[in-house]
């Protein structure tokens, strides 16, 4: 089954910013010379007085946002995920996280689906780093509809948010009128044998994986955990109890990402066997996005294989993973 592609989540962010700009004069947008790529250029065009390209200076970008938030603005700041989080990290800590400043960090080009640009522009650590900042909310939307809704929800809440968008077109998972709440996962497909818990581009892949598993008589549930932090632990507990096995899938390094967060919740609430579809402690390389996703196992078939492994362990708890 080929999923229907929607807009890239970065494009949906650009559109959501426009709507926010019209609704709330406190919304200001700053970018570090990537506005054409992060899509903040749409906002810049309509609201030139509330947009600033600060140049290639991410540390200053984040510090400025801290000062703007302190003065009652709602700054949205954007760059590539790798630069925003790595070059601005101490500033995210001191100017945003410690004072719990109302800054919205929306970073594009998350993960390895950046493609040909290679490892320096790809981001495999951003979720771990963002989630480890105390008080930060961390969101990875799956498609354009989820992005629009969650960007707006981020603007409405008070406090720091990290939201990751992606470069390529994302498979459509939702309808235009689907509703979302930060911190609430979405049960997209019921199932009784195994739960596939994913976010970002991997949600589409998880739905495709569930179809493939169904053809083999395996009933897989699919949940979208778009909010990594705070995590919807109730939903995870329900799914652990209902299916007895969980596979997480994310476009991120296996250390410190969605899988790590879900495994903490599972260990605490209802231990069941788990498998983790993620980048296995390495940086990726140049290539077409779909080639890279294939090579690093971030595909429907990668999720299917992980589901089969976890089901074996569910049937025979003496088996080890790998």
């Amino acid at each position, binding site marked *: 089954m080929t999923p229907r592609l929607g807009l890239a989540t970065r494009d949906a962010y650009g559109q959501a910013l426009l709507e926010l700009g019209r609704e709330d004069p406190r919304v*200001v947008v700053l970018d570090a010379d990537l506005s054409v790529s992060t899509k903040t250029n749409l906002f810049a065009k309509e609201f030139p*007085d*509330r947009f*600033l390209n*600060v*140049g290639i*200076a991410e*540390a*200053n970008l*984040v*510090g*400025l*946002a*801290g*000062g*703007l*938030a*302190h*003065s*009652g*603005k709602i*700054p949205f700041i954007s760059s590539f995920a790798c630069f925003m989080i790595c070059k601005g990290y*101490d*500033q995210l*800590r*001191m*100017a945003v996280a*410690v*004072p*719990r400043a109302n800054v919205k960090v929306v970073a594009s080009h998350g993960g390895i689906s950046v493609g040909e640009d290679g490892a320096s522009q790809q981001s495999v650590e951003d979720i771990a780093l963002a989630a480890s900042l105390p008080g930060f909310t961390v969101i990875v939307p799956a498609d354009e509809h989820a992005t629009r809704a969650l960007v707006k929800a981020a603007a409405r809440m008070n406090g720091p948010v990290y939201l990751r968008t992606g470069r390529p077109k994302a498979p459509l998972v939702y309808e235009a009128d689907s509703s979302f709440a930060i911190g609430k996962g979405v049960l997209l497909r019921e199932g009784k044998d195994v739960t596939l818990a994913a976010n970002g581009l991997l949600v589409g892949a998880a739905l495709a994986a569930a179809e493939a598993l169904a053809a083999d008589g395996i009933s897989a549930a699919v949940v979208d955990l778009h909010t990594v932090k705070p995590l919807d632990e109730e939903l995870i507990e329900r799914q652990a109890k209902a299916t007895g096995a969980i596979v997480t899938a994310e476009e991120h390094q296996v250390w410190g990402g969605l899988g790590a967060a879900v495994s903490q919740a599972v260990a605490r609430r209802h231990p069941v066997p788990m498998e983790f579809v993620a980048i296995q402690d390495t940086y990726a390389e140049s290539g077409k996005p779909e080639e890279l996703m294939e090579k690093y196992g971030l595909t429907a078939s990668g999720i299917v294989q992980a589901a089969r492994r976890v089901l074996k362990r569910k049937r025979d708890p003496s088996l080890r993973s790998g």
Partner: protein
Amino acid sequence: MAARNRRELTGLKKIGIIKLIMPFVPLTLPELPRMALAIRKEVIRMLGRSGSGHPGGSLSEADLLTCLFFHLMRHDPANPSWEERDRFVLSKGHGCPGVYAAMALAGYFPKEELLTLRRLGSRLQGHPDTRFLPMLEACTGSLGQGLSISCGIALAAKMDRKDHRVYCLMSDGETQEGQTWEAAAFAGFHGLDRLIALVDYNKFQLDGKVADIMDLEPLAKKWESFRWHAQEIDGHDILKIVQAVRQAQAAPGKPHVILAHTVKGKGVSFMEHNNYFHGVTPTAEETEAALKELDGDPSLSKALVAAGKIKMGGK
């Protein structure tokens, strides 16, 4: 001594209309040196009690703080979140004992609270933390960040057509941070002329002399080339400080930097130019000697030096 008391004495607090025009009664020029001395004494008392903290930079900045908090800034200790207040950001976060002392003496909180510095549960954190003391405006202590935050505050004011100013007190050492120059370039390009940065140029950083570790000179030229209006002054000359800030307030178009040449440890003879006291607090004996010296009697200080009891650093 505290300006707040002066206002209460004159009964201005009760007269709403006067409060509107002049919420905080500044000290006159001749009164400022005595306040600087009071700040230095509180710094020594606090650090003598806390047992950890940074005396050298807190003493070198004391005259700058005095002029800002008691003569130049528009603020109201009775109403710290006043919208129209000038903002003060301490980018050199380790100098917070000086700021806490200035704030207490201005009436932001009781003077007795100064002795809780760095203790569990105290609002007076080891480095400025707005979760505990919102009037600090910014969380600092990781050097090089305060100027960016100050730029953000100044930018918001510009967007909202507000006329308050942002004062950012920096150290010379943190001018080595790359972020300082990102912020400097930004403020210069955008002409943030209500931003006034002051550099407490005390010539030392933790490991030694700035000039030996990574010299900043020609520092004024650097700022000027980043499109700033730069002035160099004696950072212990009250009149010069006031004149320089007044000049900065009056000159539109560019952000302003005042390179204030200071002496680390200023006011206590055995701490002056002695980088041992960058991040080491005085012993009980040294505290007593320092306080006595600030009160005009250097005999104990001299005796400690003569007895070889003072440790030296950074020479």
